[in-house]
């Protein structure tokens, strides 16, 4: 980081103001020497990795991009429910980040400890990264405190959510494998909005598929905090009735308020449910990095953004994409990539003193596997609406006419293509 006199004064003033961070030490702790315009991206999921690639590609490699991600590898949440049925392994859904190297993205594997919107810097354990613009793509974190008896440790050890693909997905599959025939797999769904609206219902299908072939006397009990199935309702109920008759039981308005780890019991307002496998998906909010950046809205959960640029409504030069934003858009992997591209294009325009695209039009296509080979989808085009300053669903969107093997194949094509688009 080269410091001119004015910047030095600015840094000094900030240093005195907070009285903690001597500005010279701050300057020295710059992890990567900053020469030109730099975008730092925190979070290398579908949104963050896409933004990194597209900023490089569309700026013809003129803008420096530093991607900070805590995990060594990328694990796809989409399709991770098929690990539960045994159709895929977690390895099948795991990719490395090497494919991004050819774009000249600087990658740092590490944990962000703080963000300073005034100094425009991202803090890590061993130093900081200055930015001209920051993209926060933190995905979701869980609000364990809303369910008595549940916390991050319990989720890791026994009552898994498996809502971030990885170790918990594998652990939940093991619980399913050790479940007795005639047992109950209880699946608790939080109130919308949460990551991947159809995901829990797809999970019920994948678990039922395994049980049907291995433990046919067993049951999948869905405890939904919502008043009704939130996505692809007709398609899921048809799959449950026709593919897994008398196996899947659905209960609306059944928010889990408390869990007991020892007895594997979930308490709702109305009843206590003892299960053999208890899979509680807690309510969600924007990932912790969003709080560090101070861009979480008054609801304490999601981040409000300008849909032309995905810039925060709170802090200038900080953009938020993906599941963490507050929007009438589904929290999906494809949606995160679509937002990432709008954001990438806008950041390039802004850095070059141009006006961003005033008519962003983006797409979401989301497949859910209802068996090992059949899938259903929901597809929508979303357009920017000037009066509402929001992304609104365009005409013609909708769900599959019926489940099919053809869509099962297309779901696989979707996965291969989107992973290539994001990571190579």
């Amino acid at each position, binding site marked *: 980081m080269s410091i001119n006199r004015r910047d030095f004064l600015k840094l000094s003033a900030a240093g005195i103001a907070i009285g903690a961070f001597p500005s010279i030490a701050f300057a020295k702790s710059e992890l990567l020497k900053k020469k030109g315009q730099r975008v730092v991206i925190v979070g290398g999921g579908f949104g963050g990795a896409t933004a990194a690639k597209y900023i490089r590609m569309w700026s013809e490699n003129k803008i420096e991009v530093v991607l900070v991600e805590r995990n060594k590898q990328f694990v796809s949440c989409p399709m991770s429910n098929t690990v539960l049925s045994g159709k895929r392994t977690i390895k099948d859904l795991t990719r490395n980040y090497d494919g991004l190297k050819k774009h000249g993205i600087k990658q740092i594997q590490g944990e962000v400890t703080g963000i300073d919107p005034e100094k425009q810097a991202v803090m890590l354990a061993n130093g900081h990264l200055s930015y001209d613009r920051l993209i926060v793509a933190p995905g979701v974190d869980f609000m364990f405190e809303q369910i008595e008896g549940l916390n991050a440790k319990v989720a890791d050890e026994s009552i898994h959510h498996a809502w971030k693909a990885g170790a918990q997905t594998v652990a939940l599959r093991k619980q399913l494998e050790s479940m007795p025939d005639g047992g109950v797999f209880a699946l608790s769904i939080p109130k919308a909005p949460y990551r991947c609206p159809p995901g829990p219902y797809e999970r019920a299908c994948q678990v039922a598929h395994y049980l049907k072939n291995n433990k046919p006397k067993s049951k999948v009990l869905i405890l939904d905090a919502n008043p009704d199935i939130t996505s692809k309702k007709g398609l899921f109920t048809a799959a449950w009735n026709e593919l897994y008759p008398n196996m899947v039981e659905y209960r609306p308005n059944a928010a889990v308020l408390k869990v007991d780890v020892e007895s594997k019991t979930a308490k709702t307002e109305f009843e206590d449910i003892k299960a053999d496998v208890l899979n509680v998906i807690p309510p969600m909010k924007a990932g912790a990095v969003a709080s560090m950046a101070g861009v979480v809205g008054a609801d304490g959960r999601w981040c409000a953004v300008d849909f032309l640029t995905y810039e925060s409504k709170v802090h200038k030069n900080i953009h938020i994409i993906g599941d963490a934003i507050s929007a009438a858009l589904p929290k999906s992997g494809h949606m995160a990539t679509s937002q990432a591209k709008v954001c990438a294009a806008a950041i390039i325009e802004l850095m070059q003193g141009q006006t961003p*695209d005033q008519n962003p*039009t983006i797409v979401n296509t989301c497949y859910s596997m209802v068996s090992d080979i059949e899938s259903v989808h929901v597809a929508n085009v979303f357009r920017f609406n000037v009066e509402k300053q929001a992304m609104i669903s*365009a005409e*013609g969107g*909708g769900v599959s006419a019926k489940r099919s093997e053809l869509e099962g194949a*297309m779901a696989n*094509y979707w996965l291969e293509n989107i992973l290539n688009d994001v990571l190579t």
Partner: protein
Amino acid sequence: MIKKYLFVITCAVGLAFSAVQAQAEVDKHARNLAASCAACHGTGGHSAGGTPVLAGMDKALFIGSMKDFKAGARPATVMHQHAKGYTDDEFSLLADFFAAQKR
């Protein structure tokens, strides 16, 4: 008189310049529009498999296909829904973008 000519020339240059600008603007908008297709059809329409390669597709073929999807004249699982979300002008923008991508 000279002033008048100058004015005309200035206007003409101005118009030409804004036309060039508009052209560049349109291209970026087309590029941005097309970027959403990548989830299924690959970056720049270079499909990694299963779905049609859109990169280098003949413009008329692209537009014809999208119009058929939109009208329900061509059977589809997903594309009829996406096609209905776009205008004919956008089909044209997308067609130009994909036709210009090297296959």
